[in-house]
């Protein structure tokens, strides 16, 4: 009995000690790679991309050590809750449903989505009747998935893939007639809107309605880590005004993603 008490006291003491030491522990940021140009690996294996550089800049501003953790997209939020890492910085758009589970920072970028098909296909997105029976590929559990399922689920056959790579693979096999994709991803993966691309964009840039596209992309934290979120907001705001953000953005985008 006495021993048990002692052990309890020691554990409590250790955990108190651990919390005071917390400031020295690196902040663990999660990404799902590859998601070019936001997060991807160079041939030598180093992690880079817009969000990775921005995340590093935030950490530098906060004078904190940061490490990056790779986590597949569809287990992202549960893994955050399970304390596998401290924040998600992986192009997670702010939505009402997600905000019930996690705490978002202020949005730090937004990108449009677009309908894409193979060159040689003649598809008119605005003509709903002509879409009847066509197949569309989306990455599972993304905004694009929800958008297409809700608004086009009745005419298009929606196929859901684990990664954007798989969607592109099946665009090439001809199994898919269409994909609805985050535009920068399409730019990075299939050189969309260049003469070399095998694919073409068949719609304008789509950013609405907010119900699907949200207010933009934010860093996601556990609900209780309010303090950390506040510090990130402050850092992001500072980077946006002091030019660091623009510098990083110019390296990856030909258009404005700033919010």
């Amino acid at each position, binding site marked *: 009995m006495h021993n048990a008490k002692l052990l309890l006291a020691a554990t409590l003491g250790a955990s108190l000690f651990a919390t005071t030491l917390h400031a020295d522990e690196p902040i663990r940021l999660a990404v799902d790679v590859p998601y070019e140009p936001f997060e991807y690996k160079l041939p030598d294996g180093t992690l880079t991309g817009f969000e990775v550089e921005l995340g590093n800049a935030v950490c530098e501003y906060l004078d904190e050590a940061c490490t990056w953790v790779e986590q597949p997209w569809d287990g992202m939020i549960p893994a955050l809750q399970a304390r596998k890492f401290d924040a998600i910085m992986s192009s997670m758009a702010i939505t009402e449903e997600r905000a019930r589970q996690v705490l978002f920072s202020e949005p730090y970028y937004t990108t449009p989505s677009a309908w894409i098909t193979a060159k040689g296909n003649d598809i008119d997105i605005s003509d709903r009747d002509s879409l009847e029976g066509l197949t569309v*590929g989306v990455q*599972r*559990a993304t905004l694009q*998935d*929800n958008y297409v399922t809700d608004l086009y689920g009745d005419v298009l056959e929606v196929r859901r*893939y*684990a990664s954007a790579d798989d969607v592109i693979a099946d665009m090439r096999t001809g199994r898919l007639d269409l994909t609805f994709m985050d535009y920068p991803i399409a730019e990075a993966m299939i050189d969309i809107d260049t003469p070399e691309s095998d694919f073409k964009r068949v719609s304008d840039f789509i950013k609405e309605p907010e119900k699907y596209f949200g207010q933009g992309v934010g860093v996601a934290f556990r609900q209780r880590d309010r303090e950390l979120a506040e510090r990130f907001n402050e850092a992001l705001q500072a980077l946006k005004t002091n030019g660091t953000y623009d510098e990083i953005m110019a390296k990856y985008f030909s258009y404005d993603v700033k919010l």
Partner: protein
Amino acid sequence: MEALMNWLEAQLADNSIFTLQTLGYYGEGLVTTVQLVFLSLIIGLVLAVPLAIGRGSRHAWLRLPIFFYCYVFRGTPLLVQLYLIYYGVVFVEGIQDTWLWLILEKPFVPALIAFTLNTAAYTTEIFRGAIKSTPRGEIEAARAYGMSWGLMMRRIVLPSAFRRALPAYGNEVIFMLHASAIASVVTIMDLTGAARFVYARFYAPFDAFLFVAAIYLCLTFAIIYFFRHLEKRLLAHLKPASG
């Protein structure tokens, strides 16, 4: 019917995850899973019988290819086989221009092929073992009666081998049901696909997957019950005599 729907809607009114729409997804998923598993098991079984006989053949040209097939399909993960068949068929030159593509273009048939070949390999091995363990005396008796090889197989060896294989085969059926959960990686909306969809929509892993686990349990229960019934009938002669 309408009254039933209204009742269901009232029952579901106070939760945001299990709506009529998501239950519809689960329902379709159930149908797809059952179709996929049932068809692959039936075709696999039909393939496995001649393969199992050939597997025990004296002729190396017959025995070795079958051995090799079983070895490959039992020696690699089903997930890998599924990927290879789903994405691999595309590399067959010109296949997209033939009528075959109409079938292979949908994810269902490539998955069915992968599952069938996989279960056929396992079932072949199960049957081979059962055939091999036929008591020598039965074979000698059949020969003594002047039965031809074909007749002996049909009347003596196979019926008793099937009986012996039954418990192991029941196991394979359950494994196949569970293995079918990977079908959703090639975009098939099976039970697991439906659960993933609901999970992704509502970020509620426990609700989505517990529900689907319960459905799998019910299916497994039905399979166990079916095989127990079958064993009771077909293996009645092995039961200890009572009374």
